[in-house]
């Protein structure tokens, strides 16, 4: 045999294995509106950057007729490559090979690339498209999942971990994505649940479709399991690339800066916010008006939209934004918005991304459902996350900052580095309406015309307390600024905080209320 024939043999072998489950299975995958695992990787990574490992891996199962089955690559593709020239590790489950089912070798390949990602301190992207555990391999499949979950946990907060759900991801398999930082879903393609519709029907008599139970929309809007929602796989890949551009490759360095751009000229910032604190506006317009260009990468856009989280750039540097959205539920804090914000704050803190908080909220959402859903322990997560975060933290209070919500939204008391307030800010223990009803209860009740007296007292309270100057007098806010100065003040604050260095008491780990 000549070298030439050896090389030809290698090429032939590669070609054979790279076909995954074969033409028929690939056709079936296309019929479901899905790309193949290989197509996905190539679409996501920089051109010609992907290098595959363990292409010739084979399972060694012998039960239930497995000994005669050849599963190319054991149903998963692993490798390294780049996105915008930044290195990443990736695995993609291949549904065309035994339904992407997870056996021992399949799991070993995934854990191999995970170990590599952690060792090399580069982001890990996992594309999930799998029918679940490979039943024929029994407890070895379960062991495989466990090994993956353990590594997800070890890598958490060290390297970015991204999960892309492009097919079924059911039963125990859902817990790997749930342990990662960002989960991407695509309409009609992603399906995530612990217990499927058929079991739910047979046991509980509840009939529900897969889409309604655990489709993309459900996880983006109702459960909060997904962070990014797309209509198509290609849109999903664009979202992943955008995210990668904002985050650092690991927790020991900052995200790479981009060229600075001025904010797009649009509506004047002071024209966006109505003076009456009860009239809404879109907080995203404020974010856009103070950040570079027009790009704001909103995260969990459809879940708990009463709070906004996401990344933007200011003078080229990545900044994490947490902002109340008066347009939805008046921007109140509730169980879901607290969860959403707290996790994002911890993400920013873990990956050295400064946090800018824009505040305009009337308090917590009232209701039995909220209390019974544990708004106390969920709300506590925000307090914990802000208090614990040691990255630069800047707060701008635009209008309402009442009660417990004022404390929670990165107040001075939780060690915000800079707190600015607009002249329209109302920093008070509660809104004028509620306060007047309590403080002047007697006067209102005894008045000849109680309603007139109530309005008078509300006005009185408003003038006295519903402003930024009471808090400014105590040093709780650092400066009352004009709205048009907002971008410049935040930039300056971030600039002087660049070398911020604070240390928390030594501990093994804290006990956040989750």
């Amino acid at each position, binding site marked *: 045999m000549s070298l030439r024939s050896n090389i030809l043999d290698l090429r032939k072998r590669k070609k054979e294995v790279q076909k995954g489950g074969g033409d028929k299975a690939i056709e079936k995958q296309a019929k479901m509106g899905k790309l193949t695992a290989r197509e996905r990787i190539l679409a996501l990574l920089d051109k010609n950057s992907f290098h595959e490992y363990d292409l010739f891996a084979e399972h060694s199962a012998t039960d239930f007729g497995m000994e005669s089955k050849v599963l190319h690559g054991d149903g998963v593709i692993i490798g390294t490559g780049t996105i915008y020239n930044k290195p990443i590790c990736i695995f993609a489950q291949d549904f065309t090979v035994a339904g992407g089912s997870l056996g021992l070798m399949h799991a070993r390949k995934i854990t191999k690339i995970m170990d590599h990602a952690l060792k090399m301190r580069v982001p890990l992207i996992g594309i999930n498209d799998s029918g679940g555990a490979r039943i024929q391999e029994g407890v070895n499949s379960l062991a495989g999942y466990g090994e993956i979950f353990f590594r997800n946990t070890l890598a958490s907060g060290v390297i970015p971990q991204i999960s892309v759900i492009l097919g079924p991801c059911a039963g125990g398999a859902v817990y790997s994505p749930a342990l990662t930082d960002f989960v991407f879903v695509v309409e009609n393609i992603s399906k995530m649940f612990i217990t499927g519709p058929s079991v739910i029907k047979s046991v509980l008599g509840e009939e529900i479709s897969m889409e309604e139970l655990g489709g993309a929309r459900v996880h983006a809007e109702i459960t909060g399991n997904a962070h990014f929602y797309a209509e198509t796989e290609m849109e999903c890949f664009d979202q992943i690339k955008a995210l990668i551009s904002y985050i650092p490759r690991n927790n020991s360095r900052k995200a790479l800066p981009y060229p600075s751009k001025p904010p797009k000229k649009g509506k004047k910032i002071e024209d966006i916010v109505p003076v009456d604190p009860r009239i809404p506006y879109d907080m995203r317009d404020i974010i856009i008006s103070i950040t570079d260009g027009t790009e704001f990468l909103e995260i969990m856009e459809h879940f708990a939209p009463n709070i906004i989280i996401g990344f933007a750039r200011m003078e080229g540097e990545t900044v994490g934004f947490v902002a109340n959205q008066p347009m939805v539920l008046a921007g109140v804090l509730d169980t879901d918005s607290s969860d959403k914000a707290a996790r994002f704050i911890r993400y920013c803190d873990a990956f050295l991304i400064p946090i800018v908080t824009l505040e305009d909220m*009337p308090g*917590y959402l009232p209701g039995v459902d909220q209390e019974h859903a544990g708004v106390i322990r969920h709300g506590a997560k925000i307090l914990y996350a802000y208090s614990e975060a040691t990255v630069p933290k800047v707060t701008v209070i635009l209008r309402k900052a009442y009660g417990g919500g004022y404390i929670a939204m990165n107040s001075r008391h939780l060690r915000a580095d800079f707190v600015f307030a607009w002249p329209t800010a109302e920093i008070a223990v509660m809104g004028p*309406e509620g306060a007047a009803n309590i403080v002047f209860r007697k006067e209102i009740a005894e008045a000849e015309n109680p309603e007139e007296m109530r309005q008078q007292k509300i006005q009185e309270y408003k003038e006295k307390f519903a402003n930024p100057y009471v808090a400014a007098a105590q040093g709780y806010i650092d400066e009352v600024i004009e709205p048009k100065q907002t971008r410049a003040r935040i930039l300056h604050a971030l600039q002087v905080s660049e070398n911020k260095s604070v240390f928390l008491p030594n501990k093994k780990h804290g006990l956040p209320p989750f």
Partner: protein
Amino acid sequence: MSEEKKYKNLIVQGAVYKTTFTRKFEERINWEAPNENLIHSFLPGTIIDIFIKTGEKVKEGETILLLEAMKMQNQVRMPFDGEIVKIYIRKDEVISKNHLMLEIKPKNLK
């Protein structure tokens, strides 16, 4: 005008805010105080047997009916000494979760 119209009112601490609602908020279940005189099914299933009649006086802890659910025959017991006011189910009936099965009322049996 139309701008004003699409907003809903949300009251937080006495103040009325113009805003929009989420699907989750609109679909939230309003809390009702439980009525202990109404016995609902805790699981969907089949009524295997009914041991009581309307007007019958039953002691606390006595089995009043059998509900087969999740492949188990579950004994439904009288929560307190009382009387059966009304029976809303029949033997062999298949019922859903939270289906009203019985109305009872407390009665001193001594």
